[in-house]
């Protein structure tokens, strides 16, 4: 699919630095007026003059009013020497949400579209930047990620968005059919022109789309906010569980209690939902100063989390577990806690029932038994996190949590306004209808309902966007 596309290739959420990648013809001259170069190795005045593999310190500017959005480092890659094999520009900006959002807004206004999920990787392969031996892996990634995307679209947050967009689609199809009827059967007097109705329908669609687009500001936070803290006594298996969930050894795992002395953040995807897992140091009284700092951070992580998984291993003494649980409960009363009995491969402690009963008294109802080593129960954890995510969706109004979706909704809204003014200006039903069709294509790229021939790329899941 031609055209220039962009995405943030660093994980969602707050981070020190965020990297926004742009691939395609417009990534050079098309963006010259967005950067004011402050310092660079060569003599380039604008980014399109920069040589491949060089970087510049620059101000990222909104060309519509000349205001500076952020001071960034911009790196240029010229075709075919780039990740995708096309001309590319990478912007390293400050990681705040507002900054990223503003940069994307400018890029979208420039006509650069949000990348289809996984588009960078696919483009790289098709342009010969990835080895042949990777072909099958790429195909399988497409397959598994599109089924992942399907599951995401079945979640409540997306479900609500989908149903709102479906209503918009229905309205627009009706508006289009009103136009099409009079176009296809012009000689019939029984289908009079009803531009006012069409105009009304377009307006009502815009009235739904604009707030949706704007909800991204909040939706992004919702997505970022999904934090899961792993708590429990030292050596209760937190790091092992984290490694199981992420698929690689992030945390050092030993059987010496207190190995994790600091909190570890890990952004992972569970069936397309971005989740930040915080592996906290075990909470215990300690004389080790460094470990004590870790314990304090663990407490604050739990305070900030949306969901706390409290891990209990068979070796943990019953009374210590219960006292820690009540500690968490008293300190961070609002946080939902799930009891996770780990190391079921080692054995199941008969005291579990008692612990569960005491937990219940503290309002902690859920518990499960897992073995991170043998994978038993890992799926249960994933499901627990997903159902919690869904419950977030059910309590708030419809919000857009994906930048790609927000971009597409914005494009559709703009086109509908254009269709409206085409009708007002008497430009002709053919133009209006064509612009509405184009808006429907944008919405269809989210709902998947209009399988138009230009919707070429897979709906990969959102999480691998830009990678």
């Amino acid at each position, binding site marked *: 699919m031609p*055209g220039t596309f962009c995405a943030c290739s660093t994980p969602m959420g707050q981070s020190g630095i965020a990297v926004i990648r742009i691939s395609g013809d417009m990534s050079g001259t098309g963006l010259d007026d967005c950067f004011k170069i402050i310092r660079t190795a060569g003599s380039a005045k604008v980014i399109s003059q920069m040589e491949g593999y060089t970087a510049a310190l620059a101000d990222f500017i909104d060309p519509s009013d000349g205001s500076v959005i952020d001071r960034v480092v911009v790196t240029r890659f010229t075709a075919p020497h780039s990740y995708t094999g096309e001309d590319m520009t990478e912007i390293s900006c400050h990681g705040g949400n507002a900054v990223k959002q503003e940069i994307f807004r400018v890029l979208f206004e420039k006509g650069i579209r949000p990348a289809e999920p996984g588009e960078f990787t696919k483009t790289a392969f098709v342009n010969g930047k990835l080895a042949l031996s990777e072909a099958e892996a*790429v195909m399988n990634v497409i397959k598994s990620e599109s089924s992942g995307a399907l599951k995401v679209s079945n979640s409540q947050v997306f479900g609500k968005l989908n149903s709102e967009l479906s209503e918009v689609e229905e309205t627009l199809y009706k508006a289009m059919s009103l136009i099409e009827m009079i*176009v*296809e059967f012009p000689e019939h007097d029984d289908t009079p022109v009803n531009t006012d109705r069409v105009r009304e329908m377009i307006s009502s669609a815009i009235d739904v789309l604009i707030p949706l687009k704007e909800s991204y500001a909040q939706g992004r936070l919702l997505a970022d906010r999904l934090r899961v803290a792993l708590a429990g006594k030292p050596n209760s298996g937190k790091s092992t569980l984290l490694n199981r969930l992420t698929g690689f050894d992030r945390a050092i795992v030993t059987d010496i209690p207190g190995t994790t002395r600091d909190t570890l953040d890990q952004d992972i995807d569970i069936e397309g939902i971005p989740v930040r897992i915080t592996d906290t140091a075990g909470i215990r009284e300690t004389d080790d100063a460094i470990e004590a700092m870790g314990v304090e951070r663990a407490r604050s992580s739990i305070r900030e989390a949306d969901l706390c998984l409290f891990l209990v291993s068979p070796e943990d003494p019953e009374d210590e577990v219960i006292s820690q649980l009540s500690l968490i409960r008293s300190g961070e009363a609002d946080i939902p806690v799930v009891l996770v009995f780990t190391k079921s491969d080692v054995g199941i402690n008969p005291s579990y029932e008692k612990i569960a009963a005491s937990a219940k008294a503290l309002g902690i109802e859920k518990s499960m038994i897992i073995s991170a080593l043998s994978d038993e129960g890992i799926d249960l954890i994933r499901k627990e996190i997903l159902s919690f995510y869904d419950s977030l969706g059910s309590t708030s109004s419809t919000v857009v949590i994906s930048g790609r979706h927000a971009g597409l909704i914005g494009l559709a809204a703009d086109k509908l306004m254009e269709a409206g003014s085409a009708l007002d200006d008497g430009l002709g039903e*053919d133009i209006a209808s064509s612009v509405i069709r184009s808006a429907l294509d944008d919405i269809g790229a989210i709902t998947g309902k209009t399988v*138009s*021939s230009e919707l*070429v790329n897979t709906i990969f899941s959102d999480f691998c966007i830009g990678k």
Partner: protein
Amino acid sequence: MNIKEALEIKDSFMAGEYDVAVVGAGHAGCEAAHACAKLGLKTVLFTLYLDSIANLPCNPSIGGTAKGQLVREIDALGGIMGKIADECAIQMRMLNRSKGPAVYSPRAQMDRHRYSDVMKCYLEKVENLDIRQAHITDLLTEDGSVTGVMTESRAVYGAKAVVICSGTYMESRTIRGGVICESGPDGLPRSVGLSASLEAAGIPILRFKTGTPVRVNSSKLDFDQMTRQDGEYDIPPFSYDNEMHGKTVPEDQVPCWSVWTTPDTREVITENMDRSPLYSGVITGIGPRYCPSIEDKFMRFKDKDRHQIFVEPMGRQTNEMYLQGFSTSLPEDVQVKMVRSLPGLSEAVIQRSAYAIEYDLVDPLSLTPALESKVVNGLFTAGQINGSSGYEEAAGQGIIAGINAGLKVLGREPVILDRSQAYIGVLVDDLVTKGTSEPYRMMTSRAEYRLFLRQDNADTRLTPVGHDIGLIDDERFSLFEEKMRMIDEETERLKSTYIGPSDTLKEILESVGSVLPPSGISLADLLKRPKVTYELIEGVDKDRKPLPLYVTRAAETDIKYEGYLKLEKEKIEKFSELESKRLPEDTDYEKIEGLRLEARQKLNRLRPINVGQASRISGVSPADISVLLVYLEMRKREEK
């Protein structure tokens, strides 16, 4: 059956050898045969009845929304429908004038009898073309390829390619109430046996239904009770060749009329619904939704108490009038009552009654985008046999099937028009990729790129294609190039000519509610304003030279819609990228790991020619398309 077996049948004989045999001389067959003959191939055109060549058995008109665009496209490719229609038109109109140039649609009323006659006389003079009245009953094949056809009278014709354009004639039967006749349309003989012969060769056969309304004698009609609709004179002929030679539409045009059904009409129909073969289950074929019988309209749109009926002349001399919108399969006695319930028709005498007709067709999913059968090599089909409806849709397929049959014999690559090039491309792609469950009618809303697929630029899109194929001669092509040059020059002039503010300009702009610009403005920028037209700004355009209307209109449209056309072109670019990715014929989709099961089965069955076509097959998801793209890249590298 092969030729040898055919010749073993008693009384059979070898009657001739041809490059291409075209079966059926309706609108598809005429175009197909003409195209083959023009390519220099020895061609034979078979018809069941020589006096019904290019018959118009339903409405006596050619063109209309989307259909008018088709006619101009056929002409731009070097086809004949536009020229014959220009010659036989008795009224012409441009539909959708107020709705923008993308949907302007020319339509002409035909002198129906004359159309058939002119086409016959024209084809008789075409070099390399023999026309033969014969009833083809068998397709002859050898090892999965066509070798010829055999007639009912056992005449065997050898052919390297065969184009079947059987219209609604294969195993047809007409239905009026409970009365069923084994007949073709218009009381003509039907085709018997060919359908079974195709089925025996492994071709999937379907059955559809369509219908046609009543014809009445005008002498007993009271036109004072009807609304008169006259033709228009300021519109181009269908044929670009005629247009470029300065020919205009006929000057003495004949009016059409319209009336509304009355409460009596509704009552007659409601009372007799139990005698409708559709509702009693006699008719099982699938009919079209967009062209329902009048009883269907009353039953399905219960909130509408009246429907519009058009009364159209069938020719200059004849009194016969066609009642458009009054198609029915109710019995003949009910038809009389229905017609007489209409204002101005209370004493009408019916000359031909309405009927529904059922017929056999080929499942278009068994065809390639070149309109060749995927089952029998060298067999092409076009028109209603492929599930379409309408003269123009038939002719559009006919020219494509004819061209590709001819190119196949010549050993050349097939010509496939894509969805961004022509309505013909949309039509063929829809049929062979999505199939159809009812007779397929072309509509402008089926075209994604209709701002670009206009009736005024069909030659820009297709005349170079026709020239490459060999259907457009050099003389016409140089005229076309001259036209393009004039359009470019005028567009450039309008863009580079600036005029200052003046009282004249102020007056002109205020007349359409626009304001005077503070400083100089280009003529092109003026034209981009709403309601400002080329004619309107004549007063301030001092350097304007007299140019043909087709030049100024084209320049005006290009400027006025520049922004939208640019967006459409971008969309077309995206679309073309997938269209250009060809899928190798030997692809085994079962073996492509990443494809979903449904996609594997559908792709293996339909065998699309490129990734674009694959993406339009129902059941193939965007994820499957990404997998195909990666698969293609993998193959490309493995072959290196």
